[in-house]
């Protein structure tokens, strides 16, 4: 069948299966229908809930301003889909074009979209992770459990890892008057994502808001009492912190295990796909019927040296899902590349933190607006003489400008005069990122090299 005829048939009566029923899966389904796909559509999700929004779980929900059970995503349109919720996909047969489900069913497809996202990395010592009072926060169920426990007035909450989620949790606890200790292996919070210069500001924010912040330490063990409830956390500096709630915020693991042996180029850093969201197989050959979107995808980006980027970003899930859905039902020349500029936000200690570009690629940072001391500033990151990223603390309206600078490959250090440049902004300083070979919990943008067939990297969290 000629390509055009095939795509016409596909749009009319093809079978599209989406594995992953969260933000990316839902927006892809809506885009398919909006673009005229009238065939059968199946959404498969391992959680028994309709698509819900996750960011509120560590913010509005913990502050008591939203219910963990009521963050369902609004629908842009009717999608007329078959929902298979509460049943995980367990395997993929690329040759037969079938997805295997945990209940033994097999679902055939003409086009497949994989949007299985990530899951919270659990505490590596299993017996300790099982203790009552030890939580992770990623899913709605996690949110419900944690919400309930925080409402029971714990004496102290202990957060392992000061990435974005860990910092947001600490912030919400402090706002509710709960005592919090945060343990971070690096020298400051957020350093994996934003570097040491900005991390120092984040550390001040923690401490000023009454967080007992311990940096440069590792948690060596969690101790339970005789009834199996967590009682204390032990630190590498010999410290012991008594606590009744431990929240493990050590970042996320890609949900690619179910693809093992499938022949796709899937591994612990995600599923490699081309700029058009088509998945690579393990030989580095692009498929044409399997697409990837959202947190589980790794895709090359022209602005960042064509390195594969893995992005744990809400906006990327939406944008990539739209491109993937469009390309799934379009012939060659009508396809679009996914060239979204990474962007994310976080809200903690009453400060709005936003970023565009890839800060962790930056060698140097220059404060171009405001000042670090005031916690209201824009920092611009430079890499090899050009602007690669920007971060704002309570200064979001500038970011659009910097996004354009990144897209244009504007020179760094920036030369334009700014309206309120302060002394610290006159020269770039090292951005002070930790050694990239050390896995950290919270870069949210992961530069994952050039190999489309990355299956061998095994990430082993540090055993203590």
């Amino acid at each position, binding site marked *: 069948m000629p390509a055009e005829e095939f795509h016409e048939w596909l749009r009319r009566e093809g079978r599209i299966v989406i594995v992953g029923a969260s933000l990316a899966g839902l927006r892809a389904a809506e885009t398919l229908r909006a673009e005229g796909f009238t065939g059968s559509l199946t959404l498969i999700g391992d959680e028994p809930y309709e698509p819900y*929004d996750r*960011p*509120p779980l560590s*913010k*509005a929900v913990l*502050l008591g*301003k*939203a*219910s963990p059970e*009521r*963050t*369902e*995503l*609004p*629908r*842009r*349109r*009717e999608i007329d889909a078959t929902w298979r919720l509460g049943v995980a996909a367990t395997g993929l047969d690329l040759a037969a074009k079938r997805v295997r489900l945990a209940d033994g069913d097999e679902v055939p497809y003409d086009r497949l979209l994989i949007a299985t996202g990530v899951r919270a990395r659990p505490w590596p010592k299993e017996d300790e992770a099982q203790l009552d009072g030890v939580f992770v926060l990623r899913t709605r169920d996690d949110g419900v459990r944690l919400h309930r426990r925080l409402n029971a007035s714990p004496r102290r909450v202990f957060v392992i890892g000061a990435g974005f989620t860990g910092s947001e949790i600490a912030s919400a606890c402090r706002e509710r008057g709960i005592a919090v200790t945060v343990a971070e292996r690096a020298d400051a919070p957020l350093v994996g994502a934003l570097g040491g210069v900005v991390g120092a500001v984040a550390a001040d924010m923690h401490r000023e808001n009454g967080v007992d912040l311990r940096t440069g330490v590792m948690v060596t063990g969690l101790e339970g009492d005789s009834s199996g409830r967590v009682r204390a956390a032990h630190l590498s500096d010999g410290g012991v912190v008594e606590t009744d709630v431990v929240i493990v915020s050590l970042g996320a693991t890609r949900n690619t295990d179910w693809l093992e042996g499938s022949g796709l180029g899937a591994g612990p850093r995600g599923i490699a796909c081309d700029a058009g969201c088509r998945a690579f197989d393990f030989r580095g050959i692009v498929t044409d019927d399997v697409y990837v979107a959202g947190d589980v995808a790794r895709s090359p980006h022209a602005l960042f040296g064509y390195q594969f980027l893995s992005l744990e970003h*809400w*906006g990327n899930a*939406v944008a990539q899902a739209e491109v993937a859905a469009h390309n799934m039902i379009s012939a060659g020349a009508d396809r679009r590349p996914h060239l979204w500029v990474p*962007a*994310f*936000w976080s*809200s903690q*200690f*009453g*400060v*709005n933190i*936003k970023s565009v570009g890839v800060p962790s690629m930056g060698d140097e940072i220059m404060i171009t607006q405001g000042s670090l001391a005031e916690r*209201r500033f824009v920092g611009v990151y430079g890499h090899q003489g050009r602007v690669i990223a920007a971060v704002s603390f*309570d200064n*979001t*309206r500038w970011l659009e400008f910097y996004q354009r600078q990144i897209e244009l490959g504007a020179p760094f250090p920036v030369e334009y005069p700014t309206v309120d440049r302060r002394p610290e902004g006159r020269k770039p300083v090292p951005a002070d990122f930790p050694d990239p070979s050390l896995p950290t919990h919270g870069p949210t943008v992961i530069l994952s090299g050039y190999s489309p067939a990355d299956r061998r990297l095994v990430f082993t969290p540090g055993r203590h």
Partner: protein
Amino acid sequence: MRLVVDLNKCQGYAQCAFLAPDVFTMHGEESLVYDPRPEKEHRERVTRAVAACPVRAITADGLRDAPAGAGQEASDAR
């Protein structure tokens, strides 16, 4: 009624917090906190907030009476 705010787009103009203060509140100078599942009684105010957002960052469904399950697009979130 379900809603979500694209906080990449949100620039803290606070129009929503002014028009539907029971649903949207500013947290600090420019962070927005909102209830993603407001009660029906707020529908009219949320509709106005969606329309008033200068950067069109709010997507909501169920803003008008509609057959169950048929969400409407209040913002195309692009």
